[in-house]
Structure formats: structure tokens, C-alpha cells
């Protein structure tokens, strides 16, 4: 594999650890499709020694932070040791959890790490709705308890709600619940047409582009003005008002740092991100036999992404004025949907084809 010196300017800023192949919930929209891990079942987990070895190698490549996700990261039996290692290495920590297993003890352990950001999924303001999405009875009450534990440990966690037809009427109620719980922000995610999410799209359980665009406008204007919580509606940048991103009270771009991140799957494989769980093309080696440095600097797909973003993006992404910031929104999703790295983001392409793409964000014909 070729090694290009100019490629060395790319620091490996963050590793995304998909710690567990199993998950304690069965979310109907999950884009990774972990196996359901109930009592008595176990599935592959990232071994602690491998985790330690990867961190050691990554620090010399510029590592400054890690994200723990899954599956469900708090399901890992050595999560305390993993958190301790992150604390000792002084790495920024992001945790994406369903909250169910977040005891006060664990929340305090997470709080001991540097600049920690924690998000907890809450897909409804009541048990019936949340558990319809998450597939396991009792998980609503447990998630609320997890959030309360995080708040008691000093966090103001982010609540993340995935929007679908079943729960779209609970958007405001989730914000009010988040306020009462002591959350710091609420993020609304669009269900991606990947893995289980793809089935939801096919069965009409997700919202249409038109509905999502309309809901986004309401959330970003009316709803966000009614709360002190930071509200993030995670549609592509082309749909976001500039003032919401860059104004005095703006909340940034929420960019995917694709050129500075690498995924580590529960079985020890390196991948573009969690997409490697379901798309073998985007798995780049294994931590037990490949040096991280070689994977980071020599993997053809990673080199191609660094060289080609954003100018090689195709479709509406190529003609979008936000492409330099947006970078195609999600390369993993684009590969899944379009079978190539440079495929346009499905949401923007569909919006454009339906005449719903914002005119002012399209490259003018001069």
C-alpha cells in the first residue's frame, strides 16, 4: 500500500470504540444492528488489553479524545477499567449510551475523566413510546434513572431523540422532560436508511423529507426559542439556518470529523466507523495483527477520503454551497446507500429531486 508523506498531516484526533457487539436494547432504527444481549447471552467485546494497546499507539498519531459507543458501552464488563485508562491518559471522553446501565457509581467514574460529554437516548416522553422504539420493557424508567445519576454526578447530559412517525408528536414533551431531568441539550436525529433504519424507511415508519424539513423549521425556530436548553436538529447543514450555526447563540456545525477519526469494532477490527459492523468493505485491518500507524496512513479508502473531500462528492452534494463544511454529511451512510464513497447524501438528494432543497444553498449558474 502506498504511503504518502503529505498524508501525515492528518492527525488521528479521535477513536470511536464500538465496545460491544451485543446490546441490552433492541432499537428498531439502529444503524449498526447489534445482537440483543439478554441475561445469559454474551457476544464479542473489545478486550481490555487490545483497548490499551490501541490507545498507546494512537497517542503518537495525535489522539486527543475517544468516543465510547456500542452496542452499549456500559454493557462492557470492564467498563470501569476502560474509563480509568481514559482518565489516566487524560483523553477527552464522549459516551453514547442508552442510560439503562448508568449507575451513580459509573456516572461518577465517567465524570472523573477530562471534558466528558455524555448523550443518552430517549425516544419518547413516556414508557410506551420509548419502549416501542427500544424494544425492551422497563428501559424507559431505567434510562430516566441513568440520566438522573449523570446529573447527580455533575453532568448536564444531552438527550437524543430519533424522529419517526410514531413519536413525532412527542418532540416538545421530550424537551420538557429533558428540562425537568436536568439535561443540558436535546438533539433530534433523523433515522438513517441503514440496517434496521432502512427497514423502517421501507415500511413507512419514518418521516418524509417534507415532514422532516417542516419539523426542523419549527424545532429550530419556535421550539428552541421556548427553552433554555440547547436544541440541535440534526439535518444536513444545507437545511440549517446560518444564524443557528454561526450566530452569537449558534450551536456550531456538528461536523463529522471524518478525516480525523477511526472506528474500532468490538472484535478488534479497524473501520471507517461503526458502519464496519455491517459493511465489510469499510473494515481496514485488525488491531491484533496490524499496526495502527499503517492502517491510519496506508489504508486506500482513508487516503481516498482525505484526498477527495469535498471536491469529489457527487450529485447535489457537489453543487451544494455547504459542501466544504458538511463534507457530504455522512460518508458511511453514503457508501451504504450509494455503494461508493462519493455518493451524495440520501436526504439532500431526495430533497433536491423533490424540489425541497434550499435554493440559496445550491451553486448558482453564472
Amino acid at each position: 500500500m502506498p504511503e504518502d508523506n503529505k498524508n501525515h498531516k492528518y492527525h488521528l484526533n479521535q477513536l470511536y470504540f464500538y465496545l460491544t457487539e451485543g446490546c441490552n436494547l433492541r432499537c428498531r432504527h439502529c444503524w449498526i444492528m447489534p445482537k440483543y444481549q439478554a441475561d445469559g447471552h454474551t457476544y464479542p467485546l473489545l478486550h481490555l488489553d487490545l483497548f490499551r494497546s490501541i490507545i498507546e499507539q494512537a497517542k503518537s498519531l495525535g489522539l486527543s479524545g475517544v468516543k465510547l459507543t456500542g452496542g452499549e458501552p456500559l454493557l462492557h464488563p470492564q467498563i470501569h477499567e476502560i474509563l480509568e485508562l481514559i482518565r489516566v491518559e487524560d483523553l477527552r471522553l464522549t459516551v453514547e449510551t442508552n442510560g439503562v446501565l448508568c449507575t451513580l457509581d459509573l456516572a461518577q467514574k465517567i465524570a472523573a475523566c477530562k471534558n466528558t460529554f455524555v448523550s443518552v437516548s430517549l425516544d419518547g416522553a413516556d414508557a410506551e413510546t420509548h419502549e416501542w422504539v427500544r424494544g425492551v420493557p422497563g428501559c424507559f424508567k431505567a434510562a430516566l434513572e441513568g440520566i438522573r445519576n449523570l446529573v447527580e454526578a455533575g453532568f448536564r447530559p444531552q438527550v437524543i431523540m430519533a424522529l419517526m412517525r410514531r413519536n413525532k408528536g412527542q418532540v416538545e414533551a421530550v424537551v420538557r422532560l429533558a428540562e425537568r431531568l436536568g439535561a443540558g441539550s436535546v438533539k433530534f436525529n433523523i433515522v438513517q436508511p441503514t440496517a434496521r433504519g432502512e427497514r423502517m424507511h421501507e415500511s413507512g415508519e419514518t418521516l418524509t423529507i417534507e415532514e422532516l424539513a417542516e419539523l426542523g423549521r419549527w424545532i429550530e425556530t419556535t421550539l428552541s426559542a421556548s427553552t433554555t436548553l440547547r436544541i440541535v436538529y440534526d439535518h444536513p447543514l444545507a437545511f440549517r439556518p446560518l444564524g443557528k450555526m454561526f450566530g452569537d447563540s449558534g450551536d456550531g456545525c456538528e461536523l463529522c470529523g471524518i478525516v480525523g477519526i477511526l472506528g474500532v469494532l468490538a472484535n478488534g477490527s479497524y473501520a471507517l466507523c461503526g458502519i464496519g459492523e455491517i459493511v465489510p468493505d469499510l473494515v481496514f485491518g485488525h488491531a491484533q495483527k496490524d499496526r495502527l500507524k499503517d492502517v491510519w496512513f496506508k489504508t486506500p479508502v482513508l487516503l481516498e477520503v482525505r484526498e477527495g473531500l469535498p471536491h469529489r462528492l457527487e450529485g447535489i452534494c457537489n453543487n451544494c454551497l455547504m459542501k466544504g463544511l458538511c463534507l457530504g454529511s455522512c460518508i458511511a451512510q453514503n457508501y451504504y446507500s450509494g455503494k461508493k464513497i462519493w455518493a451524495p447524501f440520501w436526504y439532500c438528494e431526495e430533497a433536491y429531486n423533490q424540489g425541497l432543497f434550499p435554493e440559496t444553498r445550491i451553486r448558482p449558474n453564472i
Partner: protein
Amino acid sequence: MPDTAKPIPNSLVVLREEFDDWAILFDSATGNAFGLNPVGVFVWKCLDGNRTIKEIVNELRENCEGVPEEAEGHLREFIQDLVEQGLAGYETQKD
């Protein structure tokens, strides 16, 4: 640049105004896009080659509330940024 210099926009740059008074400047020569806040949009529209920076500041004070004392300095920096990005320039004086 002397105080009498009057900035003008690059004719290849397109202003795309949006619903919330923000706008995007698109440089068709480079393909680069830049976001402008409402004050930036106001200033951009004043770059017609007929106003000095001092005159643009006066326009701002007449049309906007709460313009700070240091506005002229900020405006000079902003216009210098536009010039450095190739989005604006100054009319060449004929001898």
C-alpha cells in the same frame, strides 16, 4: 489603504440572501462560499465603490441600533478579510 479608498465587490461574487437576513457569498471563481451575518450583509450592500469605510460606518449608525464605538476598526478588519479572500477590492484611481 487611505481613508478616501472606496471598496467594491468582486463582480464574480454572488450574494445569496436567506430568510433570516443572513446570506452566503459565493465566489464563482474559486467555488468557495462564506456566511455573512445581517450586519455583514448590510455592509456588503454598501460596497458600491461610492462610499469610504467611514461613510459605511455612518450608514451603519443611521440604520442599526447599538453600533459600538469600535465599529470602524471592526469594519476595516472585515473589509480587509474580504479583500484577502478575493471577494472585494478597491477602485483603482486614474491619474
